[in-house]
């Protein structure tokens, strides 16, 4: 690693460049492939067309899956954000020792391997009839998304001066109103970041969806997974490009939310 001499520096730069190419190439290569005209996946494509985008947009199955994924992600965000913010507020304000233990419990969804979570939820849902329901998917995703909302909101609260809220309360506001009027507007960027993370976590989640979604309520990720396992359908390239564009957009959004936080 110590780049001694000019040749050493050049060699090191080439090495780092090659590793970065390894990281970025698979992401970049999908986009031109999605504009290919042939069924056979070659790179670079010989002729360009929008054929696979049309195939995606005209397929009822893909459209249904997209609708399911987007509504689950939206509902997940809607539930996980207030639940996570409330928990973060309690953890931040409390001095109890037990609260630290609770925080660890709430972060556990990040530590347990997802395959075990998926199998466990599958068994419980099979007993109570929540398999292949939107409600079941949303509940599972809320659990998985909670840590992201919690961590983001806690970061915001830690840099917020709680005496401001005390002042509002001493002037006669109740706790809820003082939180909504004084605290929330100031930690909003962190809450927005947490909500965006929750949305992405749900949209991206595959393993739990594989186990518990199905029938009319298949998620986009489940359909993509099945398509990838069975045959390489070029429609996936078009969907992948759209997903890459979406995640870029969301990263830019969180980036700008984060910048406003500072």
């Amino acid at each position, binding site marked *: 690693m110590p*780049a*001694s001499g000019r040749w050493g520096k050049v060699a090191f730069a080439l090495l780092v460049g090659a590793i970065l190419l390894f*990281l970025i190439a698979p992401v970049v290569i*999908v986009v031109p492939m999605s504009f290919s005209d042939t069924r056979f996946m070659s790179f670079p494509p010989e002729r360009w067309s929008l054929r696979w985008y049309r195939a995606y947009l005209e397929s009822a199955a893909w459209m249904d899956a997209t609708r399911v994924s987007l509504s689950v992600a939206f509902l997940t965000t809607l539930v996980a954000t207030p639940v996570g913010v*409330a928990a973060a507020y309690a953890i931040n304000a409390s001095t109890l020792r037990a609260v630290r233990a609770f925080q660890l419990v709430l972060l556990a969804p990040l530590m347990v391997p*997802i395959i075990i979570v998926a199998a466990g939820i599958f068994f419980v849902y099979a007993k109570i009839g929540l398999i292949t329901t939107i409600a079941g998917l949303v509940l599972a995703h809320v659990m998985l998304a909670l840590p992201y909302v*919690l961590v983001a909101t806690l970061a915001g609260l830690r840099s917020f001066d709680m005496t401001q809220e005390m002042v509002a309360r001493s002037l006669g506001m109740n706790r809820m109103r003082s939180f909504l009027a004084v605290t929330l507007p100031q930690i909003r960027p962190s809450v927005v970041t947490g909500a965006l993370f929750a949305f992405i976590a749900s949209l991206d989640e*595959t393993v739990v969806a594989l186990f518990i979604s199905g029938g009319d309520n298949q998620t986009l990720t489940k359909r993509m997974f099945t398509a990838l396992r069975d045959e390489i359908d070029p429609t996936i390239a078009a969907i992948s490009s759209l997903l890459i564009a979406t995640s870029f957009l969301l990263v830019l959004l969180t980036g700008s939310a984060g910048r406003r936080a500072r």
Partner: protein
Amino acid sequence: MLLLLAPALAVVGLLLVLPLGWLAWQSIYQDGFTPEHYLRILQEDIYWNTFRLTFSISASVTVLAALLGFPVAYAAARLPPRWATVVLALVVIPFWTSVLVRAYAWLVLLQRRGVINQVLMDLGIVDEPLALVHNATGTIIGTVHVLLPFMVLPLYAVMRKIPGDLLNAAASLGARPGYVFARVFLPLSAPGLLAGAMLVFVLCLGFYITPELLGGGRTIMVSMLVQRNVELYHRWGAASAVGLTLLFVVFAIFWIVDRVLPLERVYGAR
């Protein structure tokens, strides 16, 4: 105040703790208490080999991620800010891209008539296309790609805080660059390396999507054993025992590493 915590605790309790408890119960109870599901892991070759293969693949992935991640983190930590941003962006962009999308890209790149085989044959390095996917090679390449950011980011966080003065001081006292690196820089970046290695290893142990798609159904990892026992064979007791064993191993690793090095120091310190 605890009332505010209640909804979050209820969600995690009902959707994480309860299902895990259910798994634990199912793994030891089937028409009476029985250790058979755990004994099976030790006795049946398929189970034992799957665990062995999973550990060896995770070890290879961790070593490769360390070898590839170290230079990148080093470059990001030592380059001027503008270039460091570029390097970090190239690490983070794949991190934000769906694992499915990346599995798709690797399937296309690594297939028999894919770009990589084409280039290797055009350059005359190989005569026959190599079998790069639908086997352990494909699994390892795809998994390293997914987990590399988990190595680079903690390494970078630690390296960035190593004072340049320290390296200059060592050099001014007559140490050659190689010596400064081995005796000053490397030991100081060890906490990041350990944290990154633990993350990569643990995540790889339970990895499902990439091995399933790139392993071609022949490279069976522990996660796939769980999935097949649930969905294909309906052997729920076996699936539960395998899952809980995996969970135990993962938590044991977290616990041991946390003893050696309080992880909050690595992640919490910004």
